[in-house]
């Protein structure tokens, strides 16, 4: 299919340039209720994502479309011709396409190299269930996905890159029953290396969280209390900042950040934010050495001690903003701060362990979330709580932000494990 597609693209006279991303995936999946295997599945597919560039009277017409493994030559030709026609509506000011780069094909060590995806899926299941030994709690349902993914990028300038990735994803639901009460906790875990201890620990963590949630009482009314975000919520917090520095969002006015903008003044009493983008990172399933535009990615410092240093984003929008083209990244690294456990002993704060959801408005920075599980610390005393909500605006939290001195890796994020926020409204629990 790919050789036919390339030949047809090369033979199409009206095209000025093109690129093709080919994603071949093999996924082995297991679905469990408790420890019983309910279904096994395998998904074997190849998708072809094509971008055409057509010169249209001093503008570039762009068309993007998808082809399938089963697309015939007749269908490919028809689709290309239709898309060339469509490109006259999708006109952009001229910009340069990536030149040919000799990129050594970088692939991670193949994580499940010696075992089949099917075997790796079963070993993952056994590692999960190794942790499933509590009297009052159990893994109610588990879904396991073991993935081999090959990505190729080929363009009309002669670039031809390839990246192979293997990783696993697990969806877990843990139930805990105690004194006539029953609660459940949901978690999605990903890993790029088959490590039975890591997988077992992930299952154990969710079960322990369920055991905590059952003890929770409704969140009481509290005033002037700091909020500690943990794990995934810390990642979401920093992802908002990372996305604000994406040229695509700035061009579309979803962000108004400028170079050297100061998020935190030097005299602010806070830990300063420093963020780097890193194309390939150990234990991240999102690593890649090139982006969908064919831009070869390098490490990039975007915020240094609270000051904006660089922007990232697509080739086209970066050029429109007259900014250097750095490309699209998935991995980001946030520097640790100074907040230690000792600093918190005398502090009153609400440690958030589980929210119903944590959506941050990309434009305004507003967020509101219901608390599913939290711990209220009052000068060393702790109370497990549920219900109520937190709300605020991310931008109002920078100047008093505290970052933990210990770090964590959550797939494509490496950074502080916890962050302590001020200026957050906490609503009382009701259930």
């Amino acid at each position: 299919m790919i050789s036919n597609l390339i030949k047809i693209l090369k033979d199409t006279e009206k095209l000025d340039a093109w690129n093709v991303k080919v994603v071949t995936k093999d996924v082995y999946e297991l679905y469990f209720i408790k420890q019983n295997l309910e279904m096994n599945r395998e998904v074997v597919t190849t998708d072809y994502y094509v971008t055409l560039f057509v010169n249209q009277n001093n503008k570039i017409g762009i068309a993007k479309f998808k082809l399938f493994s089963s697309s015939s030559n007749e269908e490919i030709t028809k689709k290309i011709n239709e898309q060339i026609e469509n490109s006259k509506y999708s006109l952009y000011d001229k910009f340069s396409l990536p030149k040919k780069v000799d990129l050594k094909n970088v692939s991670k060590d193949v994580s499940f190299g010696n075992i089949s995806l099917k075997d790796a899926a079963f070993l993952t299941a056994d590692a999960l269930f190794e942790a499933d030994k509590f009297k009052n709690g159990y893994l109610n349902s588990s879904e396991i996905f073991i993935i081999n993914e090959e990505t190729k990028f080929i363009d009309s300038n002669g670039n031809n890159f390839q990246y192979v990735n293997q990783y696993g994803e697990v969806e877990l639901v843990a139930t805990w029953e105690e004194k006539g009460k029953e609660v459940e906790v949901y978690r999605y875990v990903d890993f790029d290396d088959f490590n039975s201890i890591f997988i077992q620990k992930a299952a154990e963590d969710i079960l322990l969280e369920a055991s905590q949630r059952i003890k929770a009482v409704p969140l009481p009314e509290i005033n002037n209390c700091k909020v500690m975000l943990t794990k995934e919520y810390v990642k979401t917090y920093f992802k908002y900042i990372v996305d604000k520095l994406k040229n695509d969002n700035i061009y579309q006015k979803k962000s108004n950040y400028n170079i050297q903008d100061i998020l935190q003044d030097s005299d602010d009493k806070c830990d300063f934010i420093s963020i780097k983008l890193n194309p390939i990172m150990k234990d991240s399933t999102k690593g890649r050495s090139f982006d969908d535009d064919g831009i070869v990615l390098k490490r990039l410092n975007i915020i240094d001690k609270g000051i904006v240093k660089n922007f990232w984003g697509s080739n086209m929008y970066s050029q429109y903003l007259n900014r250097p083209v750095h490309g699209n990244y998935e991995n980001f690294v946030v520097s640790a701060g100074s907040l230690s456990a000792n600093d918190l002993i005398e502090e009153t704060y609400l440690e958030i362990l589980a929210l119903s959801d944590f959506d941050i408005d990309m434009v305004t920075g507003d967020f509101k979330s219901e608390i599913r599980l939290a711990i209220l610390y009052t000068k060393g005393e702790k109370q497990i709580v549920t219900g109520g909500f937190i709300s605020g605006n991310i931008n109002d939290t920078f100047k008093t932000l505290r970052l933990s001195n210990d770090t964590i890796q959550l797939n494509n994020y490496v950074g502080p494990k916890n962050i302590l926020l001020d200026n957050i409204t906490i609503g009382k629990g009701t259930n």
Partner: protein
Amino acid sequence: MNKTYSRFLEEKYESLVKIVDKLKHKFTYVSLLASDCEGQLINVSNKEVKINDSFWQERGFVVRVFNGTLYSEYAFDDFDNPTSICKKIIESVDVADQLYKAIYVKEAKNILYEEEELTKTFSKMGLYENVSIEEIIKTCQTIINNSMEENEYIISANCKVEYVKVSKLFISNNKNLKQVYSWSNAKYECIVNRDEITKFNFGGESSMSLKEALAKLKESIKHINSDATELLDASSVTPGEYDCITSCQITGLIAHEAFGHGVEMDMFVKNRALGQKYLGKSVGSNLLTMHEGATPINDVASYYFDDEGFLAQDTIVIDKGILLTGICDAISASKLNIKPTGNGRRQSFKNKVYTRMTNTYFTKGVSNLKDMIASIKYGYLIDTEISGMEDPKNFGIQCIALIGKEIVDGKLTGKVVSPLILTGNVIDLLQSVSMVSDDFNLYGTGTCSKGYKEYMKTSVGGPYLKVKVKLG
């Protein structure tokens, strides 16, 4: 996009029948679902036009087999010949060796679901009207230009128009079904700015007909823009319990999150839904009746048969406040010893079937919206869904809405609060419904997930409801 059933599926038909026939020799049950969905997403903003394939475009096959105890599936997007793909399927689904070696994993003892014999071809493409890309772009550009001329605060606006034609073929031991249908979305979003304040608002319409979706969107633009301007002066709501009126969209969101997810019966199998314990009991005001199904209404989730080959239906979930039943896929139904309701759906051929919603809505009542507003001393009219999250295990509800329009002494004051979070207990909320309007609207512009994955087109809706609700 033509109105006919997929040529690709027609061409593959004989080979696909051969695959099923060959596998029947090896397995107790075999089914094959073939999908060919084509569609486009046209995104027009004040700066650019993007024409992309729809997210929902797919082409491929998924085979399900049952070996007497275990259901297995193999999904693929191409094959050389029936013999070679059957060999791959047989190798892939065989896990005897792995089960033998496993320490903890046990094989579930599933039973085979029953299938009635049926051979039929269905089409709803009569409802689809073709509109040229040029016409769509022109309509969107007119909407955007007019909006930006009329409203000085709009700094950015865009329209997204999406249309999809779905062709599906289902072959199994007893069934041979074909269907073709379409759906369309037309959405609008604007960003407004005044001094340091930036806000956004959005809205959209859905239909099986693209022309209808575009026409409905045009009608709603003024309302979206004026709400966006009002949001520039929005304040935060003081947390507490209020008498409120939910818009048709928020009513639909409540139906979807509260008793849509709450009665997905694959959750009953896992003992993950509290709704199971409330069957036959009162869960809301006797003014409330809730339907779920692909057949009673034409919108984005109105198909003839589901992804397991079971005919779609109209399920009355709540009748006058009493929870009657849930919705169910075939495997879960076999475990619960009930009949499937035609709600076994996949995100694409690549994904597993789960029990999923289709069109979920409360039926309209007899009250007039003006009378409902007039009956409120202090409260809000809540509109525009941002998101919702189910909690079927605990009957908790979290719906986030963008706009709360203040009502004082029975009148809208023009003041708004934003955003706001509706919290509390599902049953308390539904029991508090005291008035149901005679309006009805359905919204199919969003997507539904199962947990945090498995995206699906669904529609939600209903009338305006007067409720008591906790707002944050």
